[in-house]
Every structure is written in structure tokens, then in C-alpha cells.
């Protein structure tokens, strides 16, 4: 079977897909990719199903080798990527010849990059998904020396590109009321919207912590609430008054009061906010939320029709030629330009 050989991998490199919905009653959260939109983008670039597994790379990628020719696509947070030394364009698909070396470095912007292969990674399906879910003991970080099996590729074009709107530098997250929103008085809710937050570096696949310069948002008297089901996007106010956005691998039940929940369509932006980048929270109405979710789904459905061949802007060609002349690396992806 075709494999992608992992020569080196950052600590946050895991196999991810759309996760395992349907086990909330048994205490298992959905998990799956932090930036689900990136999975749809990769699927569009490779003209394949969005539920195939990809490599999620938090902060930094790794060094990979194909043991047979592969189609690959790069999505999510742009990272420094080269194939046998030649730079690769992000949000695009590429041909990866057998024996070639793909090197993916640190993020240029955003937080989480994705490496897709034609046919998807064909690691074991456990409880209906291939996604590593670390806090459930399902899989773990990809280790050096691993041969990741690749599924059968139906083949198709490479050298395709997708124009992606910026979701990699924080900004506005739209929020909706949740169960305990009414416990927080109007002044506190207004303060939540007025506060300039940053993403706290102490964040992971379970939760994104917000940092701020103002006093916390704790309920007066430290009112405790009975544990209820929680889902990704919920904003808990922890004991110290700090808002925490629950992410893909959150626990399924929690007893901290929830002031709001992030619109699902804005979770990719939350996931891609780099440490220290600004975030602000804005309440929207359920009708506005519904319209935004409809638009988000329509945009996902339209991704494949927006994929276009990677045609170089003539103004860039002299630079590219000089790069290639200096580097001597012409091999690898000429077929993209045919």
C-alpha cells in the first residue's frame, strides 16, 4: 500500500477527519479537525470527499517522503513548505513524486495547517473515525518513522488553487446566547462585547483561553451551576473569570457557567487565531446566525467550483525563473503548469 513516510513531525501533528459525532450520551466528544473548513478546502482541491483523513499540523509541520507518486494539498494556516527544496504554494494541490521530500515548517500566519493526500490517510477506523482524540486515548501524535498508509486515489488534477478569505489573524467572533447567558447581567454582557481579548498561548485542542487586561467576568457570588452537556464553541467562564472557548476535543459535560456560544461558522477563525492575536466577541440574533450558517454551508458547497488552475501571474515569472536558476531545482511539479 502507498504510504507517506514521516521523517520528522512537530509535536502537534495528528491524523484528523470530521470526527465522531453521536456519542455525547456516552461522554465522548466529536473531536476531529480544529479547522473543519480546511478539510472541505482540501477535499475541493483534490476533488474528493471531505470525510477523508488529513494531517493536522499545529504550529509546525514536518518532513515527509512519498513512497509512490501522490497528489497532495495544503490548506489551513499557511506554512513554509518546499518539495525537494522548491517552494510550494499554499491553498493549492501539488504532485509529489515517489521519493521526493516534502518539508513543512512553521506557520506564517494562523495556527493550524493541513496536509491532504489523494485518497486520504487510511489509518485504522476506530468508533467510526480516524481522528486522533488524545484525551480519549484514541491515537496520538504522529511519530517519526511512521509510514502513514494512503487510501486509493481516484486520481485527478494537481496544480489547482483556491482563493481563501483571511481567517488567520483573529478578529471578530459572532456569538449567540447559551443556557446561562441570562445569569450574567446586562453590564457584564456589554463588557464582554467591548473587551479587546487576545488568544492566550495556553490553548490546545480542548480549549482556547482568552487573555484580557480587564477584570474577569465571574458571576457575582460565584454562583455554581449543575453540570450540563457542553459542545464546541461554548464559552465557559472559569473560576478566575476568564472566558474559555471550548474546541473540538472538549469534554462533554461541564459545570462552569456559559456566557455565550460561538457561531459554528466562526469556529475555524477561532481555531486559526495565533497566540497573542486579537479577538472580540459580538452577539448576533438567532436569525442573523441562521443566515450566516446558511451562507457558510453554501460557501462550502461552492468550494469545488471555485478551484482554478494555478496559472502564474506573468509578473512573477522572472522571479521564479531566477529562483529556479539559482536553486537548480526544476524537477518536482512542472506538470502543474501544463
Amino acid at each position: 500500500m502507498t504510504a507517506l513516510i514521516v521523517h520528522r513531525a512537530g509535536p502537534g501533528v495528528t491524523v484528523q477527519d470530521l470526527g465522531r459525532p453521536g456519542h455525547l450520551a456516552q461522554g465522548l466528544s466529536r473531536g476531529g479537525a480544529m479547522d473543519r473548513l480546511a478539510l472541505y478546502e482540501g477535499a475541493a482541491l483534490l476533488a474528493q470527499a471531505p470525510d477523508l483523513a488529513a494531517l493536522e499540523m499545529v504550529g509546525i509541520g514536518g518532513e515527509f517522503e512519498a513512497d509512490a507518486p501522490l497528489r497532495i494539498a495544503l490548506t489551513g494556516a499557511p506554512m513554509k513548505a518546499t518539495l525537494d527544496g522548491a517552494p510550494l504554494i499554499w491553498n493549492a494541490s501539488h504532485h509529489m513524486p515517489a521519493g521526493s521530500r516534502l518539508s513543512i515548517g512553521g506557520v506564517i500566519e494562523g495556527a493550524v495547517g493541513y496536509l491532504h493526500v489523494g485518497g486520504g490517510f487510511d489509518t485504522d477506523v476506530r468508533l467510526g473515525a480516524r481522528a486522533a482524540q488524545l484525551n480519549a486515548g484514541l491515537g496520538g501524535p504522529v511519530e517519526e518513522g511512521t509510514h502513514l498508509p494512503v487510501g486509493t486515489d481516484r486520481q485527478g488534477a494537481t496544480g489547482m488553487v483556491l482563493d481563501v478569505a483571511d481567517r488567520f489573524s483573529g478578529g471578530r467572533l459572532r456569538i449567540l446566547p447559551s443556557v446561562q447567558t441570562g445569569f450574567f447581567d446586562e453590564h457584564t454582557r456589554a463588557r464582554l462585547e467591548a473587551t479587546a481579548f487576545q488568544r492566550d498561548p495556553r490553548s490546545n485542542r480542548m480549549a482556547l483561553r482568552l487573555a484580557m487586561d480587564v477584570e474577569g467576568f465571574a458571576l457575582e457570588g460565584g454562583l455554581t451551576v449543575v453540570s450540563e452537556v457542553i459542545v464546541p464553541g461554548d464559552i465557559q467562564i472559569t473560576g478566575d473569570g476568564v472566558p474559555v472557548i471550548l474546541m473540538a476535543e472538549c469534554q462533554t459535560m461541564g459545570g462552569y457557567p456559559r456566557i455565550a456560544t460561538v457561531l459554528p461558522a466562526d469556529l475555524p477563525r477561532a481555531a486559526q487565531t495565533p497566540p497573542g492575536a486579537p479577538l472580540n466577541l459580538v452577539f448576533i440574533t438567532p436569525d442573523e446566525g441562521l443566515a450566516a450558517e446558511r451562507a457558510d454551508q453554501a460557501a462550502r458547497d461552492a468550494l469545488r467550483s471555485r478551484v482554478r488552475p494555478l496559472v502564474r501571474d506573468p509578473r512573477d515569472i522572472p522571479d521564479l525563473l531566477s529562483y529556479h536558476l539559482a536553486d537548480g531545482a526544476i524537477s518536482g511539479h512542472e506538470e502543474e503548469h501544463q
Partner: protein
Amino acid sequence: MTSAPVSASGSWPVIRSLGLTGLLVSFADAFSEPANRAALAFRAALERDPWPGVEETAPSLVSVFLRIDPLAADHADLAARLSDLVSRQDWYEAPLPEGRRLFRVPTVYGTDLAPELSEAATAAGLSEAEAIRELSAARLRVMALGFAPGQPYLGELPENWNLPRRTELNPMVPAGAMIQAIRQCVLFSRPSPTGWRHIGQTAFENFRPDSDPAFPLNPGDEVQFVATDRAHVERMMGDADVLDGGAEVEVIS
């Protein structure tokens, strides 16, 4: 809904939205046996006749959560339908769901495997032997599963077990640990820190992802932690062929 408890914030049950994709039907704002019974029975009713647009349902201690697809079903319509179902019967006195099972789980109380038994027994006003007798005899309901995969919240123990959490965190207790506070027990799925007291140790696995079923316990099941000796539990902990930590399993409804 004659027996619906009334709280300071109004009458129960209440139906609330969690953003666009969730609805929560709550039967109380604090744990009680009738509210848990209501949640389990209400969830069973929803599962018997799945509604379009409802992707899954999950009970918590006193509520039922519905994950919904807001593009497939209208939020207000679902809320109205829930309200109608809520008003059809007294859920606080509803029978528990059918198909529930009792797990008699061999448990070593105390010893170095569960070192906080003696502290808990003293706090509950009992000798160690009395505590073991009382705990061993209790049939505890799986009131909800959560926090970690397959991990049950079990209750309720007699009132003398209404013990506060410890002020110091126990940095790590192992999987299969039976821990206790506030008239409840939790059986740990994975090694974890806790503020509850580690009073018993079992070889029970709450989550075995490569078996079917992956989760042995369901909401509404019952667990009895039957006292056994340390060597028995230790032997089972090292034996991959032992199923359900050596528990006897019996259908009770």
C-alpha cells in the same frame, strides 16, 4: 406537571437554547433523584421516536440535550414540539427506561490501592468495616456519563455520604478508581487528578474503543461495588481477557 419542583427562578421544566445547534430541557437546577429520573425518561421518549433535524440526544444529571441541525429543522418549531412533549405527562414520576442493566463490580476498598477510604469513612461517621458494608450494599444509578468517555456519575449514597470535596487535589488517580463526594461516586475512565476521595479500586473499563459495545454502561444502568480482596482486583487489572472488570451483569428492566 403537578409535582414539578418550583425554584426561585421559576417553574420547571424549562426549555433553553444553546446557540443555534442545541436545545436543553432541564427538570431542575440542582441534582435530585426525580429530576434525574425525568431526564432519563424524557430522553428515552425522544430516542424511541427520533425527530427530523435532531442529530443526537444526551441526558445529563437533570437535563436532556438535543443537538440539532438548524438548517434542517426550525429551532422554534422544535422548541414548541418539546414543550408539548414535556406537558404530556409527569416526567418526575415516569418509569425509568427499559433495558437497563445491573453491574456487580468487584471492588477493593481501602488498602494502598484506594488510600482515602479511612478518611472518607471517618467523615461519614462510620468505621472502615461499616463503610465497606454500606458502600458494598448500595445500588447506584448511572445518572449520566461524561467528562471522560464512558465515565459514569453514580448516585445516590445515603445522606451521611454527603461529603464535601477535599480542599487539596489528589494529583492522579488511576483508571478504574472509584471516587466519592456529595453522595455520588465516579468510576474513572482514565488516570486523572481529582478533588474527590479515592475509596475503591476496580478493574472496570468504561471505554474500550475497539470492542462492541465500546461503552459498557448506559444512562439508567445500575452499579453495585461489591467488596473483594486486593489480590483479586490486582489480578484482573493485569488480565486483558477479563471483561467488565469481572462484573456480573444482569438485566433489571
